[in-house]
């Protein structure tokens, strides 16, 4: 596929307007914020760590693997095993199913699955380097968390955009590393982030689904 057309596909699929339900997810930020662990002054660091050492890198690695030909069923089982809680799984599987439904409606036939598997399959015909697709997805993930941060902290819109732009080098580095890492070598260091996501499941009251 011509690169310009491939980029248009990616832009559509990862747009906040693509109906994945991303708006309802905070990736545990709501619980972390409720416990006083993160606020407006350190959201940048929190998100950087989640990208570099948590779900950002994990999803990018699985995405790159599927894009590179790994079996989607095997990668889905891996994603499920890595999901530290039901909330984590719902976040990726729920959005993935919505993404798959929207893709099918837009003419790209893919089965339901977690986000990185669905996107990896959809992106196979695009002919883009895995690191490019992975970077776009990591940025979309960052965008989702910042959107939640705007509502939670609260974080002014323009400040959120400044964070997103500042994250670009890390997003690119994370995507490059993910594309060069076999999924079996995937690791995580975002332990407190996992604890927050687990606590989110029973947080009362709560605004977000995860």
């Amino acid at each position, binding site marked *: 596929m011509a690169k310009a057309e491939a980029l248009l596909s990616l832009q559509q699929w990862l747009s906040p307007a693509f109906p994945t339900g991303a708006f309802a997810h905070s990736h545990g930020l709501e619980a*972390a914020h409720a416990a006083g662990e993160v606020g407006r002054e350190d959201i940048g*660091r929190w998100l950087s760590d989640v990208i570099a050492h948590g779900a950002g890198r994990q999803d990018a690695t699985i995405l790159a693997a599927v894009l590179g030909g790994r079996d989607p069923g095997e990668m889905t089982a891996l994603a499920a*095993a890595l999901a530290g809680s*039901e909330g984590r799984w719902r976040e990726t599987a729920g959005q993935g199913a919505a993404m798959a439904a929207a893709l099918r409606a837009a003419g790209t036939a893919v089965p339901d699955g977690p986000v990185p598997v669905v996107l990896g399959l959809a992106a196979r015909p695009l002919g883009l380097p895995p690191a490019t697709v992975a970077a776009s997805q990591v940025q979309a993930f960052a965008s989702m968390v910042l959107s939640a941060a705007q509502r939670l902290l609260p974080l002014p819109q323009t400040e959120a955009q400044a964070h997103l732009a500042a994250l670009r080098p890390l997003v690119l580095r994370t995507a490059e590393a993910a594309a060069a890492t076999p999924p079996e070598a995937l690791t*995580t260091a975002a332990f407190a982030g996992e604890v927050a996501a687990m606590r989110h499941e029973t947080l009362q009251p709560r605004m977000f689904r995860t």
Partner: protein
Amino acid sequence: MEMRPLAPLQRARGEAAVVLGAGGVIGLRQSGCGKAILPRTHGAAEAVFLNTSGGLTSGDRLRYALDLRAGRAAGTTQAAERAYAAPHGPAEVRVDLVAGPGAALRWLPQETILYDRAALHRSTVAELAPGASLLLLEMLVLGREAMGESVRALDLLDRREVRRAGRPVLLEPLRLTGDLLDRRASALTGGCRALATLAFVAPGAEDAAEGLRAHVPGLAVSGWAVAGGDGRCVARALGPAAEVRRAMAQAAERLGGPLPLVWQREAG
């Protein structure tokens, strides 16, 4: 004059492999610094593993294996494992667990204490047959609290994997390096000294989550969480070492019954 690096010191090697069945010990193999003690118990069988070299450092290779063919059993360690400064590469540890059809296995090692400049690569893999259940605990302590030690340099890879019918069902591939231990890294360890994961994998394990969650043992709200679903119930703790150990001991007992005797010592 350029200093040549010293030749690596003599490395420790050890392996202890235990096979248990409903009627007791089926097999026991020990080599090097790896030992396994099988105490008399009134309840579930126990296998207590120990590393007689006194700790782990560069180049050490240690393997513990526990294969439970049937019945109920718990594996544990005689003492906390200590990973000392390791300037010449990591110590490597493998823990291989197998639970046969319907068997109920608990792997409840005592904590692993990581000293400054420790390098440890550990892989714990559990294979569960249909109907088997597993209670798996891993607790890490970063520097000794009583000595006021801080860990600044670290090379830790601690991969915990539970598999059933050839597929992963739980995977926690923890990787911590010194640069990530900052107090301000609130998505990572937040500067906490101890972190632990207790995983219960069994058909219906998710039903245990609510009860477990209700009994929060003296940890900050942000330092304890329980989540359950689809044959898993996982608890995680993050905080000071003594509190994390106490929380995990209580949770493990709640989920799997009385703890092995070695656990009933003063919290260190």
